[in-house]
């Protein structure tokens, strides 16, 4: 009796397996891999786009920018996504000409855990750099108080939280620190993963968020969305024009605006410390990586159509998910670039 039951279970499972494969709609599946930062936005886009074009399924998995770059170079996916632009050497290694299509931009904020402080703290660039270098050790250090005279900063140690995993967020943040602090550039440098002079490493944005939340006196850097959804305080940062700017969607778009005129044709540009009175200085693009010459004609056509939709109609979904929509002036340039893709 028991054996029959076993046989029946196995039989049902087998039929289910084969049946599910046979009955599944044979829709075109286009796979993409890469950055975790834009994942919520991309998943919204693909969901909405399915209403526009029902003949294709876009499957995007966030395995990390590095993963996205590796996979598009190995051609195991149809497009990649990255928060960090490829270097010239990396581009040379790709089997074909690889385009960077900017999709959206995001801000990296400095968040902290000081329950006794009600006002938003202000930091100037050299102060941020020296805190993370470990040179400024206490919250009531003169240099911090200078920019925050009314705050009433406590005489407590600053506990640094940084990312332990490689990440585009770290890349943007260290890019910023390198451009505002010669010390930082020489000692640590910029990258998705760096040798932090001090501090605890948390895994992922949520790891850093967790660390900051649990430790009074902690300071860390996270994507804007994490600070907002976790109700963490975040600081105003002094930008190139000397204004202390609150991180927001608007100030991020202002940062993009500050770079539009000097934008290189291949869109591989850093967004930190831009010109512009209202620009937030710690921001970055995220790109989709596609080959100029698409080998699969049908897939190529679908991808191009999606990209066009994403940088125009798609941008209206950005703000709701805390991403910065791209300004019109930039969208036009991107459209031209997309036009160069062959299929």
């Amino acid at each position, binding site marked *: 009796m028991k054996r029959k039951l076993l046989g029946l279970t196995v039989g049902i499972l087998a039929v289910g397996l084969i049946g599910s494969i046979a009955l599944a709609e044979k829709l075109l599946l286009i796979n993409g891999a890469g950055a975790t930062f834009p994942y919520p936005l991309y998943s919204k886009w693909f969901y909405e786009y399915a209403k526009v074009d029902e003949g294709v399924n876009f499957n995007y998995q966030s*395995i*990390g*920018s*590095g*993963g996205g*770059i*590796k996979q598009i170079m190995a051609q195991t996916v149809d497009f990649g996504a990255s928060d*960090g632009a*490829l270097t010239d050497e*990396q581009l040379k290694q790709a089997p074909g000409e690889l385009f960077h299509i900017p999709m959206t931009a995001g801000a990296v904020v400095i968040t902290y855990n000081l329950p006794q402080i009600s006002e938003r703290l202000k930091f100037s660039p050299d102060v941020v750099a020296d805190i993370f270098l470990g040179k400024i050790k206490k919250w009531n250090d003169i240099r911090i108080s200078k920019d925050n005279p009314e705050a009433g900063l406590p005489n407590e140690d600053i*506990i640094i939280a940084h990312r*332990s*995993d*490689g*990440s*585009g967020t770290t890349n943007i943040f260290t890019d910023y620190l390198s451009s505002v602090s010669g010390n930082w550039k020489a000692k*640590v*440098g*910029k*990258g*998705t*993963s*760096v*040798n*932090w002079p001090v*501090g*605890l*490493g*948390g*895994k992922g944005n949520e*790891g850093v968020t*967790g*660390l900051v939340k*649990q*430790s009074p006196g902690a300071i860390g850097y996270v994507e804007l969305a994490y600070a907002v959804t976790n109700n963490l305080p975040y600081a105003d940062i002094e930008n190139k024009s000397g204004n202390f700017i609150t991180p927001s969607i608007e100030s991020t778009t202002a940062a993009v605006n500050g770079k539009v005129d000097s934008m290189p044709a291949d869109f591989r540009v850093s967004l930190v410390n831009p010109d512009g009175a209202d620009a937030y200085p710690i921001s970055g693009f995220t790109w989709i990586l596609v080959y100029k010459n698409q080998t699969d004609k049908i897939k190529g056509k679908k991808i191009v159509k999606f990209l066009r939709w994403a940088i125009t109609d798609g941008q209206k979904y950005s703000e709701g998910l805390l991403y910065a929509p791209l300004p019109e002036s930039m969208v036009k340039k991107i459209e031209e670039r997309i036009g160069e893709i062959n299929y």
Partner: protein
Amino acid sequence: MKIKFFDLGFKEAVALLALSVVALTLLLVYNMATYAMPAIQKFGLHFLSTTTWDPVKEIFGALPFIYGTIISSALALLIAVPVSLGIAIYLAELAPAWIREPLSFLIELLAAIPSVVYGLWGIFVLAPFLRQDVQPFLAKYFGFLPLFQGNFYGVGMLTAGIILSIMIIPTISSVSREVFLVVPFSQREAALALGATRWETIRLGVLKYARAGILGAVILGMGRALGETMAVTMVIGNRPEISASLFAPSYTMASVIANEFTEATGDLFLSALIEIGLVLFFVTLVLNIAARALIWQVSGKMKGEIRE
């Protein structure tokens, strides 16, 4: 004659399957070595003694990670082995009949919890508990030991060791329990006949007989501890530094690979990460040799004999 034929084929067939495991592992090591070659060529043996890990300047050294892996696993085993044996003894020998099945089942269920869940629980429940209640207590009364000195953050070596121990307890205790259950009654009866107490019966009649099996269970647990990534990386603080204090943050080999592999660009970086994988492989190798030697000593027989 039909019988003989089956016999011949059978032995070879199972041997083949067993060997395929070796072949697979060798292929794996070869694969890793190929990826790791650039780093091996660049750093040589210095890789094992350097303490810097700098992806920007491309200086990589494995020492802090080796330290972190060994200490966190040792701590985990220190906690897990006695507790697991306690559980196994209780379930196999002491517990009343009605409690045995549900309790065994529950403890095995601990093994089903995904590592990522352990990690999240660790950072949101265990770490604050340690930071607020346990670590201050340890610092106050045991602070004279270098083990419990320095700042504590909730995350760190101690937290990682505790979480690892929770993760390997199901394995060690379940396998040990099964081993105890098949110890022949005659062993226990002999001890009882000599007038032993309950505990003495267990010690003489069960534990001694099951030594080899227990060590096998411990080795399985040790393997799991050495290679565990997700849960550890969320609670260990991820700082490649060597420190005597258990409160300090640390970093394990498996964690650094898991953390940096998906985002690593740059061939030397990737190569160095895989080289860490190779180093972990060899550390596991060495530890297993040590454990084998221990089994050999303890069981006193050539491994490979079936018990009476």
